[in-house]
């Protein structure tokens, strides 16, 4: 598999994480309200970190360093892990609302960590096994 595809994947997903992470932070420190981008300083920070890992991978690959694959792989793992955490938290929120008889909608669960993790999960399904196998045999 060409490293070029991994490089583009890392760059695009990394940029999305970085951009949406910044928006979450800006929303938290200002009164800016954006749909599906909840205000959260630390949530935004976590997205920035994932973005940085993916972009580091993309940069290394662009420079011809195969080690970039490692960063893209781990970036994808972090993406899926944080997506799962956010989804779990949203599920607990739904349960709490049900117990307390309060309103809850699916839109409440739609945060960047969740919908970006879908792209991460697609990368995991499509590539990660091959990434790991390639590395172990390297």
């Amino acid at each position, binding site marked *: 598999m060409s490293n070029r595809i991994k490089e583009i994947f890392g760059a695009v997903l990394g940029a999305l994480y970085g951009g949406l992470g910044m928006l979450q932070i800006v929303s938290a420190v200002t009164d800016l309200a954006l749909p599906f981008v909840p205000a959260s300083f630390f*949530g935004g*920070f976590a997205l920035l*970190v994932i973005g*940085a890992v993916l972009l580091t991978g993309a940069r290394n690959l662009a420079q011809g360093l195969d*080690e970039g694959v490692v960063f893209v792989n781990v970036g994808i793992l972090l993406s899926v892990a*944080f997506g799962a955490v956010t989804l779990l*938290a949203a599920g607990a929120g739904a349960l709490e609302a049900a*117990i307390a008889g309060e309103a809850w909608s699916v839109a409440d669960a739609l945060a960047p960590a969740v919908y970006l993790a879908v792209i991460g999960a697609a990368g995991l399904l499509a590539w990660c096994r091959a990434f790991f196998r390639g*590395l172990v*045999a390297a």
Partner: protein
Amino acid sequence: MTGIRIALTGNPNVGKTTLFNALTGSRQHVGNWPGVTVEKKTGRIDWNGHAIEVIDLPGTYSLTAYSADEVVARDYIIEEKPDVVVQVVDATNLERNLYLTTQLAELGVPVVIALNMADAAEAGGCAIDRERLSALLAIPVVRTVGTRGEGLDDLLDAAIREVETSPHHEHTVGYGNDAEVMIASIVDVFSADKDLTKRYPLRWLAVRLLEGDENALDKIRDSPAHTGVQALLSGIDPDEYEVAMADRRYEMIAAVLPQVRTAGAGGMNVSEMVDRVVTDRYLGIPIFLALMWGAFELTFAVAAPFVVLIEAGLAWLSATIAGSIEPAWLASLVGDGIIGGVGAVLVFVPNIFILFLILSFLEDTGYLARAAFIMDRLMYAIGLPGKAFIPMLIGFGCNVPGIMAARSIEGEKDRLITILVNPFISCSARLPVYILFAGAFFGAGAGGIVFLLYILGIAAAIGSAKLFRHTILPGESSPFIMEMPPYRLPTVWTSLLHTWSRGAMYVRKAGTIILVGALVVWCLASLPFGVEYGSSASLAGALGHLLEPLVAPLGFDWKVAVALLFGFVAKEVVVGSLGVLYGTGEGGDALSTALLADPGLSAATALALMVFVLLYTPCLATIATIRKETGSWRWAGFSVAYGLVLAWLLALIVGHIAPFFLGGA
């Protein structure tokens, strides 16, 4: 039935305690990092007509002991003379583990090797010829997988056989002509001392002395041979001998390994791949911070529905009791005192269990060992070894084992600093206070506030360590060498067991210390007779008003002063006391509502209070442990005084600065 003592020894983090638990049915804490066991543990098992006592010793890389826990391991083997020593060897890292084997063999004690984590080695494509290894070392080698209890029967049988086939054999490494001449000369001097001859293998003792082992020198201080040996040692450079002898041992290992091991394919495995990123020079710390934030966010969110259910249960219980108990004082005792006090703490049981579950997962996977590694540069910059971060991480659960874990720190001053700063690490007892106040005053941002408090605790510990290093405990720290354990996927059972063992302690405290604290506060709030419950005319009010001037500059009133005073016993009592003083027995979330309705409390005051609770005097159990570990009340007293001053100053600053960030809240 004959009695046999088996000592389990080995390098740190090779699975000794897991094997110990599997052999004896114990539930000692295990963790995927080095240094979890700092003192010996004993368990018993009956096996084929033998009453076997198993002793789990702290991990050690060699018999040249440097740290307090290594001395425990070494001295037990040498002084207590167990019938057989089982060396637990990590099959994935044979070379380093066999170094200790060469030293054990020199002791002449019966040794059995438990080739542990054999499954992990095999999964990595590594094959070990156990029979060949056994033949070359003249030591029985048994394949074990501690986590699955594999090979335990064979291990016990081999240990018994080794005991019964005594006299055993002594195996030596040839150290070269110069060293051997010196060893022979020292042994010759020793042979005049019959007592010494009986107590220690003389060749082993001579080797230790040539390597400059201070502990070994202490063992011969009262011997008539002491002067003669000193004369022999005066002309040599022990460092030179130590290096040369280590080289010889590794040469022997290097000769053995190719004959017994077929290595797997090279290249980077998954553990190494993840490590490359999570220990990255620039990304390591941000990843650590992001994961910690995720942990606290999850703790809050997932616990919330369970908290709602417990609150509803307590409200029902309180209403039922209030309507059916006479006289009124008894209803108040049960409702305001017991349910208000203990219930206020029990409400947070889900948060505690979920946090422990997450921390257990991070610990068992091996990630927390990486956290210590990435903090090394920062720790070294402040004059502490990175190893000192491990007791801090343990302190997240409870400061008592965190302080005890400082035994693995080699330098005395390093160890003392590590002990003194550990109480600033936010233990689980503070969590109910954070959850109560952050939940009440910061709503959706509560998880972030709690995360910041944990970071502040680490920052306070690191800042204080730097201060101590440059003032009262000057010196240089030793470089940090830490072995990275491989990542492991914890089993559900292991994670649940860890979570339960830690979480159950919290529940037990609710039924003991916190119950007593709540009853004492209820009495103070109800007396003298006829006074309005919890009013400023009560004894609690009088006590609170006495203390109020001390905390008034921080924005705290007399009720908070009383709660903080009782929090000295255990930090959870702060929440229990507030529950009693606010008389909120009628509903679990009533305390949050009461705090929000108190005109004396604001978001800024709440933040200052959380900072104060984070940093002020350690709880009684922690103070007692500091006294025990430092051997001095002076250091325990210093810890209390320093914590109070730091807490007061930082709470004052936070209380005055926070309104600017919180919009004058």
